[in-house]
Each structure stands twice: as C-alpha cells, then as structure tokens.
C-alpha cells in the first residue's frame, strides 16, 4: 500500500492541472463565442497559395 503515498498526490495533481486549465481558458474568454470558433476554422486564409500548390 506504500505506493499510495505518491500515486494519490500524482492523481490529484493531474486533476488539479485540468481544473486550472479550464479556469484559465474560461478567464481568457475562450467560451465567449462558441459559434464563432466553430466557423472561424473554415477560411483557409492562413494557408498561402504556395504551400497549397506545393
């Protein structure tokens, strides 16, 4: 059972990382415009003509 000594803190730390990441994404406004995010991926203007041909 000694394995619990480090497994439990590791599990909790992983969970906390997820929680902090979510709170950070919420704070930075990533959920403010969900529909916009869905359509913004469609335009290909970030790909230059050359790379599309090549």
């Amino acid at each position, binding site marked *: 059972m000694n394995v619990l000594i480090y497994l439990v803190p590791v599990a909790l730390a992983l969970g906390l990382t997820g929680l902090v990441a979510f709170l950070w994404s919420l704070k930075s406004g990533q959920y403010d*415009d969900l*529909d*916009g995010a869905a*359509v*913004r991926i469609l335009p290909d203007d970030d790909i230059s003509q050359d790379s599309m041909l090549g």
Partner: protein
Amino acid sequence: MAEILDLSTFVERTPSGNSHITLAVDGVSCAGCIRKIESGLAKLPGVIDVRLNFTQKRLIVDWRGGEIDPARIVKAVEDLGYGAHPFAPARIEAAENRQAKWLLRCLAVAGFAAMNVMLLSISVWSGNGSDMTQETRDLFHWLSALIALPAAAYAGQPFFQSAWGALRTRQLNMDVPITVGVVLALALSVSETATHAAHAYFDSALMLLFFLLCGRYLDQMVRRRTKVFAGNLASLKAEFAHRLDGGEVARVPADALSPGDCVLVRPGERVPADGTVIAGSSAIDESLVTGETAPRAVAAGATIYAGSINFSGALTVRVDTAGSGTLVDEVERLLDKAMQAKSRTVRLADRASRLYAPVVHATAALTALGWLVAGASVHDAIVTAVAVLIITCPCALALAIPAVQVVASGQLFRSGVILNTGDAIERLAEADTVVFDKTGTLTLPEPCADAASIDPDLLERAARLALSSRHPLAVALARHARERIPYPGAVEEPGAGVRALIDGEEGRLGSPAFCGVADSERYDGTADAEASFIVFCRGGRSADIPIRQVLRPDAVAVVQALIARGLEVMVLSGDRPATVAPVAERLGAQQWRAGLNPAEKIAVIELLKSQGRRVLMVGDGLNDAPALAAAHVSLSPISAADLTQAHADALFLGDRLGPVLRAVAVTRRARMLMKQNLALAVIYNAVAMPVAIAGLVTPLIAAIAMSASSILVTLNALRARLTVPGAVGAGAVPAQTAVTASASAGEPVGSVARGASMEYAS
C-alpha cells in the same frame, strides 16, 4: 443636407486613453462575413483591435485615442454590406455575464472535486467488502475531506448566499434545505472520519452540488441568451433624432436627447421623444400611443408623444422632461397603481419548496427522536437523521423545474417569443382569457394599401411614384411596388404630394387638391371609417387608393385556434367602435369593447379578474401599458412602444400573431411537464425516505438514488423537445425564423420593406 452623425454617447474611453465601441451587427451568417468585417475594419487607420462575436452578433472595435469618428466605423461596416447599430451594453447584461462565469467556475470546481472524491469513495466501498485496513480507509476519508471541504465552501456559495438571503427575510426557498443538507452531510462525515467509522458522505454532498449547479447554470444560460438577443433587437430598433444645435442638424440617438433640446421631425418620421411643438403644423398618427387610427392635427403649442408618426409637415419640437404630458402622466399613475395591486404570484418551485422544507426537516427530527425512543444510541440516531436529510435533499426537485424552463424557453425563443420575466412560462400556461388590443396588435403596425380594388397596372405606377415620397401613406403604398426603382426626376411638394413624368405623361400622387380632384366628403374619413385615401392621377384618369390597417396575416386562424383550445378571446381597443366592430366580427372574438381609455381598459381587466379569470393581455400601445401590468400575464409585439415593452412579460417577433398561440401551447405543455417532474420527485422521496428512516442508507445507496432521480427528471424535461406541442389549428402557423425590424437608423420609419433581417442566435 449634410448631417453630422453624433455617436459619441456610445463610445467608451479606456483608462489608457483608447476608445471602445460595441455595435450590434446584422446580416452576419458565415465565416466569410467575419473575415470580411474584421479585415475591412482593421484597415482603418488607428484601429487596434476588431473582434466580431459570432454567437452574439456583436462587433467590438478598439482604436487609439479619439482618432476615428465612430460614425466612420458604422459607415465602414455598412459599406461592406452589413447593418451596424451602436449598442450601449446594459449594466444588467454585464452582471449576468459575471454571474454566468462565476456559476461555471463553481460547476468546474464541484465537478473536479466530485470526480476525485468518488474515486476514493468507490475504493472505500469495495474495500469495506473485502480486506481494507482501517488505516487505509481513514487515509482515504481524510483525503476526501481535504478535497471536499474547500471545494464545497467554494462551489456551494450560490446556494449559501441565496439561502441566507431568504432566511434574512424570514422566508424559505429551495436553497435552504440544500444548504442544510450539504453542511450537515459534510459535518457528519468529518466527525465519522474522526471516529474511524466505515461510512462518510463527502461524495454525496459534492455530487449534490454538481447536479444542482448544472441546473443553475442552464437556467442562467437561457436567460442570458434571450437578454443578448433582446439587447441587439433594441439597438436595431433604436430611433435617431435630428437635433438642432444652433443652425446645424445633428443626427443623434433618441436616448441621448435631454429636456430642452430642440429636434426637427420631418414628414414620415417617428417623434423621438415627448415634447411640445414650437414651430410648424402637421397631422400626426398616434396609433402607437392611443390606439386611435385617425390622424390628429397639431400646431405650435401642442403636446406630442414619442412614437407618433408625423404625416405632412416638418415640426420643430422642444423635448420636455419625461412624463410631463398629460397622457403620459395618466399612464404612469395607472401603472404605479397596477404594479402595487399586482400580487406577486408564487412560483411553482417556491410553492413546492415551502411545503417541502418543513416536511423534510420535521421528518429528520422525528427520525432521530424515534430511534432514540427505540433505544438507539445518540450517535446512531443523529447519523440516521442526517442520512434522511441527505437522501431527501431536493436534488431532483431543484432540477425538476429549471430543466423544463430551459427547454421551454428555448422552444419559445425559436418560435419568436422572448421572455422578459422568469416566471412568465408558468403564468402564460395558466391564462384562460386572452384580451387583444386592436391597433398594432391584431393589425399590422403599419397600414397597407387595399390592393384588391385597384387596377394592378395603375397600382404599380402609383406605388413606384410613392417610392419618392416620405409621407406615411405613400410609404404604405410604396410597399406594393414590384419594380423598386423610383421614377427619375420625381419631385415631392411637402404637404401636398409627389409628381413625376411617367412614360411621357405627368403623374401625381397625393392629396385630392394636389391631383386636381374635387374634395368630396369621403376624404375626411366619414364615409369609410377605416381607411385614409391617397389620390393618384395621370393622363386624366384618377384613382382613390384606400390605405387601411390590415389584420396580421394569420390573425383569424390564431384567434380561432385559441378559442378551440378553450380560451375566451376579447378585443379591447382605444379606437372608434366603427373600426373595431368589423375586426372583432371577422376574428370571431366573443366580446369586444371600443373607445376605451387606459383606465377603462384596466377596469375591464379588473372585472375579469374578479370573476376568477386569468387574463393574458396582448397589446402594443402606450395606452395598453397599464393594462399589461394589471393582467395576469402579458405579451407585446416587438413594434410596441418602449414603456409597453418594458411592462410585458414576453415579446413576440415578426408580422404574424402565431407566436401568441405557440406561447400558450408551449407553456401549457411545459407546465404539465413541471408538474410531472414534481410528481416524480415526490415518488422518489416516497420510496427513498422510508429506506433512510429505517437506517439502511449507505453512501453508496445515496449516490445511486440521487443521480438516478436527477437524470430521470432531466430526461423527462427533454421530452418537451421531442414532441412538438399540438398542431396550430386550421391555418398552421409556421414558426418564425427571422425577424424584420424597422432598422435603417435615421430613415423614415415606414421603410420597413428595406428593414434588416436578423437571425436568431440559437
């Protein structure tokens, strides 16, 4: 005339000296639009940041210092082919946004903690059945406490605060038993852990919070979405006024006017604020104010009200302090009285929790007493009593009603009904009598030409000529023009009419005198009470074109369907009996009254109320506002006067009356589902409570029972989505999917034909 568009009231200055404006944008439907607008505006010199929120259809622009005139930004968006309307973010909306984020943070914390504690709890449950040592179990319980206590203290705040608020005013709401349950569960678990007991309820407390926060957040989300939409609509509808600053005319938002300002009201425009005429004379249409359809002649010294339409001559108006007009005074006074008299209807959820909390707490106390009497130890008696509290904690009850409300308000939203108040759903479902106002509610807000009686060729020419005029009657006629190109060289003579060369011959449209026709008695409105006439003549032929209020296209079908559903329909109008009678007859309304002033309308509604009826009032005029406030529940079309909209429980969009029927159908079904859900919650308690009283509830059973009942009521609420509420009667009314609002700011109000359309953000 070159005008200055003054939007400075909408610009916010940031502390760093930059400027910031929010615009409601319409016509945005795809990714291409976002890119076009954002890159188009980024090219303006000085612009730092442009961001289009696609969900909310809002554009936020930041620029350096005061380098750009906000009017230029609006112009730039309009040049790209979209409508842009300056938007003053309401303070209430900002508060709702903060509240939503806070709830989401609480939800995240509760979810994280519930998952981790459940991980430890399941180990304990399986360990209790096998060979887990007491030390390991204690370690797991202490770890659970370490996670659960801070998490519950944070995530439970929405409930603790609301429960405290209710207790301070000596009331009980649903959050009181929730708070008691959570706090007791945690306290008991800590003391059990300290005494090395086998069971702790940390996971139950956190799971409870997680489920309840889900319900809370959903509720909040729907409310926020309708608020955002209503805010956009308000800015789309916002009126502009021509303010006289010395010799110059500046176009300013009507909200920015202050008492003492002088405004110019041109023919065809809506009066932007209450005031006194100081120069000019004209006839004004006050149908939005009084319900009266015949125009009133005004001259210098007359009091006029916001929302009236100026017909013939330009007026200079001095803006007076709000509510100085006699009619407005009267309406405000009646409103105050109606608001005071209105007994706050108790919401279904609150009624349930008022019954529920005492029953649950009494049962818990009796359980403890019973076990003590039966000879159990004090510790065991208290543990059993707390288990009763935990298992009966109104998890399902607190989800039962919000879940249905979320689904129902979403459905109402899609059918073009925007709720102003949270409990409107329940009150709409209770209505058994529908009282309609006539002008602007049963009829379309703008008059239309009676096309049937006129030669189509002549009508087309007259309508095309009307395109060149701003007179409200001409604007109504212009909507019939198939070819929407004005005749070149058309000249408008103010107060008389418009003339142009049509295929080589002069055509004239306007007053009888202008067209050289003898002024017969029919033009003064005595022969045909409903219609106003406009005369068209060309090449010796002349025609009188009647312009009248027409019923909304589905008004008859909707009224018939309402009657078929067992509601009584009544028409109360401020207009003359001669115009109300035919309308009531066509609709088949059971009763009608005409020529009522606001006080008389209230009197009729009070009479109905004293007969035990629950009245749904549908009205749009300023004169309807007190009646709306007095009724059990009220609806307004989006074209209604501002004060009236503010007092309506819900607004409906579009040219059709269908949303009224749909609102009744959806809410009745929602109410049925709410009651079903409450019944489910009661059945759950009836099963779970005896088990808990018997002392058989372990944390495992509590976890299963609570999640099962919550999921059950949520699924039942979602049933509302699966089946569309009953057919709409003979003329099925399709759900409105787009709104047309008179949008082009500063344009004559009548130009609805060109009004912008705006899609729901669903």
